[in-house]
C-alpha cells in the first residue's frame, strides 16, 4: 500500500495539479460549468416534452387514450407548452456552442490577466461567425423523370445567401467552437500584451478607453480568422467546422463509444479517488471531449423525431455506474443494512442514506472510510466498471435499454435518473435498477469481510 501511495504522490498528484491548473483545460471546464444552467434548462424542457407532453411520449400516449384529453387538452398543449419547451431547448442546447465559446474565451482571458474579459469573449464569438459560410446550398427538387417505372426527382442544388447552417452551431461544432475560443483569445491577449493598443487621453471615460484599447487586437484577430476562413472555404472547399469535426471530433467520439475507453477512464478515476486524489480532475477533460458531443448529438436527434445514435454518453457513468455517488456507494449502504454487524458501520449507513439517495457520498467516503481502506478498495474501484460493462452490453449489444439522450441534475436519485435521461424508457430504468441491485450484491462479501476486521479501538 505504501508503494502505491508513494506512486500516487509522485505521479498522479502532480498530474492532477497540472491538469487542474492548465489554463486551457481550466477555461474549457469553467466555460462548460458556466453554461450548465442553460444546458440544464434546455435538457429539462426537452425531457418534459418527450416524456410527458408529446402525444407519442410515455405519459402523453397513456393520457391520449382518454378521449377528453385527446380532444381538448392535447391540442392546447401542442399549441402552447410544447412549442415553448421546444424554443427553450433550441436556445439552451440547440445553439449552445455560442454561449460555450463566449464562456470559454471569457474564462481564458481572465486567466491570462485580461481586465476586460468581456471583449475577448465577444471577439471569440464573432470570430466563430467569421469562420461560418455566408450561404448554404440546398437540394431543391428538379425535373421529375421516370426510371424503370419509378418517378425520381433530379437533384438540383441552389445556393442561398444569408443562411447559416445549424451544423455550425450544433453538436458537430463543439470542437470547432472550443478551438476558436482558445486560439482567438490567446491571439487577442498576445496582441494586447505586445502593446498593440490605442491609448486614449486621461479625460476619456474608462469604458470608452477600454473599448478603444481593444480596437487593434480585435481587428487583427478578425482579419487573421477571416483569412483562415477563406482558406478553408476556397482552398479546402469546406468550412473550418466541417474539417475540425471530421479530423478531430468524430474520431474521438468514435473512440469513446468503445466500452474499454469508458471503463479505463472510470477505473482510473476510482483508483485515484481511493488514494484521496480528485480523480475526475484527470479524466473529466477526456470524458467531456469524447462524450459531450455524443450526448448533444443524441438530444438533437430526438428533438428532430429521430432515434439517438450513441450508446455511451457522459451521464452513462452516473446512471449505471455511480448509484449514490462515486464507487456506487448506495449499494454499499444497502449491503451494510443487510449484512453489516458493526454498530459504527450501521450508524454511518443510516446517516449516509439520505445524502446517498441524492448522489452525495462524502459521509461514507470519509466516515467508513472508503479512502485508503484495503478491504473496500476492490469493490470501490471495480463495482462501477462491472455495472458499466453490463449496462453497455444491454444497451449497445442486446438492445434492451434505450439510449440516454437527456438528463436532470447530477443529484437526481439513481434509477429515476435513468428514467429521465432515457426520456422515460422502461428498459433503461429496469437496467439501472438491475445494476443497482448488482452493486449491492457485489459489496455484500466485502461488508461480511469488514465485519470480521477489528477496528483500532477494538484491538
Amino acid at each position, binding site marked *: 500500500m505504501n508503494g502505491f501511495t508513494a506512486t500516487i504522490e509522485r505521479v498522479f498528484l502532480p498530474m492532477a495539479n497540472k491538469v487542474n491548473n492548465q489554463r486551457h483545460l481550466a477555461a474549457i471546464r469553467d466555460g462548460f460549468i458556466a453554461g450548465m444552467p442553460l444546458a440544464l434548462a434546455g435538457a429539462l424542457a426537452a425531457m418534459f416534452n418527450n416524456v410527458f407532453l408529446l402525444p407519442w411520449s410515455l405519459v402523453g400516449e397513456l393520457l391520449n387514450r382518454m378521449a377528453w384529453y385527446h380532444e381538448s387538452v392535447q391540442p392546447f398543449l401542442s399549441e402552447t407548452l410544447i412549442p415553448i419547451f421546444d424554443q427553450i431547448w433550441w436556445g439552451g442546447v440547440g445553439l449552445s456552442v455560442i454561449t460555450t465559446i463566449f464562456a470559454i474565451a471569457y474564462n481564458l482571458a481572465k486567466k491570462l490577466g485580461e481586465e476586460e474579459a468581456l471583449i475577448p469573449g465577444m471577439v471569440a464569438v464573432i470570430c466563430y461567425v467569421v469562420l461560418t459560410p455566408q450561404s448554404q446550398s440546398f437540394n431543391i427538387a428538379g425535373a421529375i423523370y421516370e426510371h424503370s417505372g419509378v418517378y425520381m426527382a433530379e437533384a438540383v442544388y441552389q445556393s442561398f445567401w444569408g443562411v447559416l447552417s445549424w451544423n455550425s452551431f450544433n453538436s458537430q461544432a463543439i470542437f470547432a467552437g472550443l478551438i476558436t475560443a482558445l486560439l482567438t483569445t490567446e491571439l487577442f491577449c498576445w496582441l494586447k500584451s505586445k502593446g498593440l493598443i490605442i491609448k486614449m487621453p486621461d479625460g476619456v471615460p474608462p469604458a470608452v478607453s477600454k473599448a478603444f484599447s481593444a480596437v487593434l487586437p480585435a481587428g487583427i484577430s478578425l482579419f487573421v480568422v477571416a483569412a483562415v476562413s477563406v482558406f478553408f472555404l476556397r482552398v479546402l472547399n469546406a468550412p473550418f467546422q466541417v474539417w475540425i469535426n471530421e479530423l478531430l471530433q468524430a474520431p474521438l467520439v468514435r473512440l469513446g463509444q468503445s466500452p474499454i475507453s469508458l471503463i479505463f477512464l472510470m477505473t482510473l478515476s476510482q483508483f485515484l479517488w481511493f488514494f484521496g486524489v480528485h480523480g475526475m480532475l484527470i479524466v473529466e477533460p477526456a470524458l467531456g471531449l469524447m462524450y459531450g458531443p455524443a450526448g448533444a448529438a443524441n438530444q438533437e436527434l430526438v428533438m428532430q423525431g429521430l432515434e439517438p445514435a450513441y450508446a455511451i454518453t457522459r451521464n452513462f457513468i452516473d446512471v449505471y455506474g455511480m448509484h449514490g455517488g462515486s464507487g456506487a456507494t448506495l449499494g454499499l449502504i444497502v449491503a451494510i443494512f443487510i449484512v453489516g454487524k458493526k454498530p459504527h458501520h450501521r450508524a454511518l449507513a443510516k446517516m449516509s442514506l439520505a445524502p446517498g439517495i441524492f448522489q452525495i457520498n462524502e459521509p461514507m467516503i470519509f466516515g467508513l*472510510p472508503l479512502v485508503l481502506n484495503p478491504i473496500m478498495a476492490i469493490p470501490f474501484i471495480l463495482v462501477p466498471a462491472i455495472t458499466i460493462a453490463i449496462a453497455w452490453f444491454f444497451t449497445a449489444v442486446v438492445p434492451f435499454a434505450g439510449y440516454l439522450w437527456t438528463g436532470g441534475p447530477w443529484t437526481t436519485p439513481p434509477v429515476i435518473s435513468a428514467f429521465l435521461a432515457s426520456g422515460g424508457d422502461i428498459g433503461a430504468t429496469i437496467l439501472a435498477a438491475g445494476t443497482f441491485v448488482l452493486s449491492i450484491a457485489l459489496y455484500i462479501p466485502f461488508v461480511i469481510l469488514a465485519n470480521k476486521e477489528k477496528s483500532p479501538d477494538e484491538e
Partner: protein
Amino acid sequence: MFVINSPRNQKEIIELLESQDGKFKLVEKEGIMKMVFETTMEDKEAAAKLAKETIKKQTWGKSIYFQIEVK
C-alpha cells in the same frame, strides 16, 4: 474545533493552516487521515470555510479530495 479528513498532503495542510496568523492550530491527528484543528475564530462554520478556501487556493489544494466537518 473542526476536523479535516484528507489522506493526502497532510503536512502541507498543517503547515499552511498554522501559518494563518494563529487562527488555526492542530490539536491532534486521529487515524490515517483525520486532523483536528482548534480555531481562535468565534464562528466555527466560518473558520472551517476559511480553512477550506485557504487549502483550495493552493495549486495542490484543488487536486486533493478532502472534507471538513465542524465539531
